[in-house]
C-alpha cells in the first residue's frame, strides 16, 4: 500500500515538473507567444490603455545578456471573441544592445481590437 502511494506521489510530482503552470490570465506573460526561442530577452510589464478609441500597448523589454541581441516581433490584434480582427502583421526587427531596456509601443489598427498577443522570437 505504501509503495503504491509513493509511486502515485512520484508520478504526480513528475507530471507537475514536466509542464510549467500556464500564465495567469490577464498577466503580461499570458500576452506573449514565443515562437521558437527567445534567448536573453525578458518581456516585462505592459501598459495597456484605450486612447481615442484605439487599444494602445507599451511593452517593456530587457536584454539580460551583455551582448547585442536582435529580436523579431509582431502583434496579433484580437476581438471580444478571441479571434483576430485585423490582417496578420509582418515581422519587425528590434535590436537591443547589451543590457539595454527598451519600451515597444503599438497601436491597434482597428477600434474593434480588445485584446492582443505579442509574438516574439530571437535568433
Amino acid at each position, binding site marked *: 500500500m505504501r509503495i503504491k502511494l509513493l509511486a502515485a506521489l512520484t508520478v504526480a510530482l513528475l507530471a507537475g515538473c514536466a509542464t510549467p503552470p500556464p500564465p495567469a490570465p490577464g*498577466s*503580461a506573460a499570458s500576452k506573449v507567444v514565443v515562437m521558437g526561442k527567445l534567448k536573453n530577452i525578458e518581456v516585462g510589464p505592459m*501598459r*495597456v490603455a484605450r486612447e481615442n*478609441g484605439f487599444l494602445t500597448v507599451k511593452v517593456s523589454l530587457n536584454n539580460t545578456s551583455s551582448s547585442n541581441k536582435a529580436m523579431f516581433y509582431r502583434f496579433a490584434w484580437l476581438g471580444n471573441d478571441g479571434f483576430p480582427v485585423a490582417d496578420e502583421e509582418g515581422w519587425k526587427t528590434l535590436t537591443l544592445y547589451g543590457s539595454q531596456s527598451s519600451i515597444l509601443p503599438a497601436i491597434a489598427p482597428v*477600434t474593434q481590437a480588445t485584446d492582443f498577443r505579442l509574438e516574439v522570437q530571437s535568433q
Partner: protein
Amino acid sequence: MRAWIAVVGLACAFGAHAAPKVAVTDLAYQERVEEYIHTVSSQQNSHASMYSANSSSSYNEYESSQSYVEQTELRKFSGDIKGEILKTGMFQLVQGTPYTAKAKEDVYDVIKRIKNGNFKGADYVLFGTLSDIDFQRDINSLDRTDSYSAVLGLTLVADFSLINTKTFEITSAFTAMGEGQDTKLVNGDDVRVTLNRPRVVREVSKELGMDVARQLSEQLGQAMPEHERRPMRNNLPPDEPAQILR
C-alpha cells in the same frame, strides 16, 4: 350594447392618442452658379488679280460672365431621418411635395410652402436646411512602417426646425451632424486606391438620422433608451484608463 359602447370608447381613446403627422423635407440649400463665356472669331479674305487687289479682315471677341443663385434640395440624406423618427414611435410620417426647379416659391420660405399646400395632411413639418457639407481626403504616414493610411471622410451639418402647420409655432429646433469615413492602409506597391464613397454617404446618412431622432426626442421630453444613444465621436468605443500587466 354596453360592449359596443366600450369598443367605440376605446376606438375614440386610441384616435385621440394617435401620433401627430409629420412631413420631413429634404435638406434645402442654395448655391451660386457662375458662367463665363469667351468667344473669339476672326476672318480674313483677300483677292488679287492682274489689275486689282483687295483684302478684308474682321475680328470679333465676345466676353461675358454671369452668376446666379440656384435653390434646390439635397435628397440623399432624408431617408434615415424618416426611418429613425418612425422608430421613436412619436410621429406618423406623411410625404410632402418635394421642391423642384419649377417651384415658384423660395425654398427657405417654409410658411409660404405650407400655405401653398405642399405638406397636405401634416400637423408638423420638419424643415431642414443644409449648413455645411465637406468631403475630406487625407493621406497620413504611419510611424515605423512604410505604409500610409488613405482616408475619405464626409461631414454634414444641417439645421432643423419642427414647425406646426396650423400655428407656425416652432416646437423644436436643433443642429444635427453626420460623420462617416472610409480608411485603407496603402503602401508604395498599391497602384491605385479607391475609397468607398457610397459607404461613407450611407454612414453619414445613418448618423444624421440618429442624431435628429435623438435631439427631437430630447427636446420633446421623451428620452430615448440608453442603448440607442450613441456617442457622436465617430462611434468610437470609450477610452479606458491605462492598466499595467505584470
